[in-house]
């Protein structure tokens, strides 16, 4: 047998091996695999638990402190006081834990070499992105929703006479909105994880975009700020759990939509990187 220099067409004889019934990769199975991945790492639960505890803890602490200091508060503070926001203040802390975990569920695989086992089993690759996002979004939303309701109900109880109920205007929207915001933070983080593949770089980029960018935008000339500031990820996204809205900012759902576009862009970049670069 001699080997021609030109590419040789595939002989018909070498056919794919027939599989026993049912043995094949499906999107649902990849989701199941990612769910096993998530729950079999202790760090997943520790980080997620820290986020939930932080959110509830801060919400209760702030509510309790506000109630205790009510008599010393200035009239302006009392006027702008928003009991809903007060009890959900812990979301600012929770986003750290959820963001870090979102990056880690992806970059942890690159750091350990697991990604090569993952892509060996799912060589089409993109199902891994969708599965990770679905699993992490569902888990985050469930945990954040519990944390948001607990913060709100506990916080309002501690605010006693200054508190409101869930039936107050915008209260329910804010509680669910806080959970949605945290979920999208997680998706944003995982998307950046796929794009950057490195834990330190992923976390730095995430919090650079969420926390540092607004600070930098404030350094812009004030005439430019209203073109930039409202559209930054956290500035847009946080409106979804704000009752008293800064008029220069976007409305609750428009802002949340802009935040989702940011997250979608990160995911698109991550998916492109995963499917085009060597693992």
């Amino acid at each position, binding site marked *: *047998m001699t080997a021609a220099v030109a590419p*040789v067409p595939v002989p018909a004889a070498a056919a*794919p091996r027939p599989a026993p019934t049912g*043995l094949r990769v499906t999107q649902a199975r990849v989701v199941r695999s990612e769910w*096993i991945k998530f729950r079999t790492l*202790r760090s997943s639960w520790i980080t997620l638990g820290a986020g939930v505890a932080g959110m509830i803890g801060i919400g209760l602490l702030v509510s309790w402190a506000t109630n205790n200091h009510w008599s010393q508060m200035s009239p302006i503070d009392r006027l702008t006081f928003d009991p809903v926001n007060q009890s959900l203040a812990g979301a600012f802390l929770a986003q750290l834990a959820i963001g870090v975990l979102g990056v880690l569920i992806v970059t942890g695989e690159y750091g*350990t070499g697991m990604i*090569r*086992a993952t892509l060996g089993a799912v*060589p089409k690759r993109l199902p891994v992105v969708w599965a990770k996002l679905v699993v992490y979004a569902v888990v985050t939303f469930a945990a954040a929703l519990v944390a948001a309701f607990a913060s709100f109900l506990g916080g309002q109880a501690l605010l006693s006479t200054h508190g409101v109920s869930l039936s107050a205007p915008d209260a329910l929207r804010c509680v669910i909105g806080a959970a949605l915001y945290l979920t999208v933070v997680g998706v944003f983080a995982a998307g950046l994880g796929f794009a950057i593949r490195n834990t330190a770089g992923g976390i730095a980029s995430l919090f650079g975009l969420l926390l540092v960018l607004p600070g930098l935008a404030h350094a812009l000339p004030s005439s430019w700020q209203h073109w930039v500031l409202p559209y930054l990820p956290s500035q847009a996204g946080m409106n979804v759990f704000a009752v008293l809205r800064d008029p220069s900012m976007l409305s609750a759902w428009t802002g949340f939509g802009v935040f989702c576009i940011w997250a979608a862009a990160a995911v698109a970049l991550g998916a492109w990187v995963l499917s085009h670069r060597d693992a």
Partner: protein
Amino acid sequence: MCRCVRPRRALVRAACAVRTCALRPQPGTRRLEAIQESGSPVIEIRELTKRFGPKLAVDSLSFDVRPGMVTGFLGPNGAGKSTTMRMVIGLDRPTAGTAIVNGRPYAQHPDPLHQVGALLEAKAVHTSRTARNHLRVLAATHGIPTSRVDEMIDLVGLSDVASKRAGGFSLGMGQRLGIASALLGDPSVLVLDEPVNGLDPEGVRWVRDLLKYKASQGCTVFVSSHLMSEMAVTADHVIVIGRGRLLADCPTSELIRSASSNRVSVRTPDAGRLQTALAGPDVTVTVTAPDVLEVDGLASARIGEIALAERIVLHELVPQQASLEEAFMEMTADTVEFHAAAGSTSAGPTQEPSSV
């Protein structure tokens, strides 16, 4: 390479010296002799090329791997073995060319783990997850039942540590876990990169037996190694590459047959006289030590007869069988990517201390 340093006897019975030039592919005849035809090719590599920046890691490589036998994939460090295997599994995207497994690129199979079992890196494992959970994660992608996971854990002998974090595993245990994941989908093709790396002698033997058993069952076994001695006893067919290019593609038996060497080492107190007595056309005599001659071109029996006729005392008369390792060193000498400092010749785990 210092020519006088040479193992005095073959370490591996089957391994023989090789005439390097005979194994270099000639234009148009990549295969030197009829291949053991035991089925149509299962892995087909065609003009496969991979460039990392300025470095050409794999250079227009073309070869086939056939079922029913163990195919060894040899080459020095950096020759492109791992990169080639990663392209077969679709982890690396070829710059040019194709790698086909069971009739399709690996990624286009609906059931990749059932088609090909791969071990490309011992530690492609999340260090914080237990061995069993790692296998469950992989099994879940294909709907492979957990009972199969437990079977594989038993098979590779990891039952005692299956619930321990994989991060604490030794290299050998990591290899066993990697082999378990390769076998998980009951594949017809095995692609294993250095599977015996880090294994103890018992583990090496176990892998060897496993590969031979799989091949006897009609599986395609494609296994890389830089340990010639290991390949000499495991592989039925060898593919040798250097600097990303094909150097040889032939049955191991062919390699061994072409390896028959005529060199004989003679130790005698009267080396000078013997050298004169042996001289002739086609005979090369090299003095490697004051009392040792290396004779090329005469059978040991003939040397003994000449010595008797000349009444020269011989203390040793040893037909030299250079190891397959040495043949490999010769074959790949000009393609080795990373040279050790001068003076360290063919150092390897199986290298015999040579007497000079």
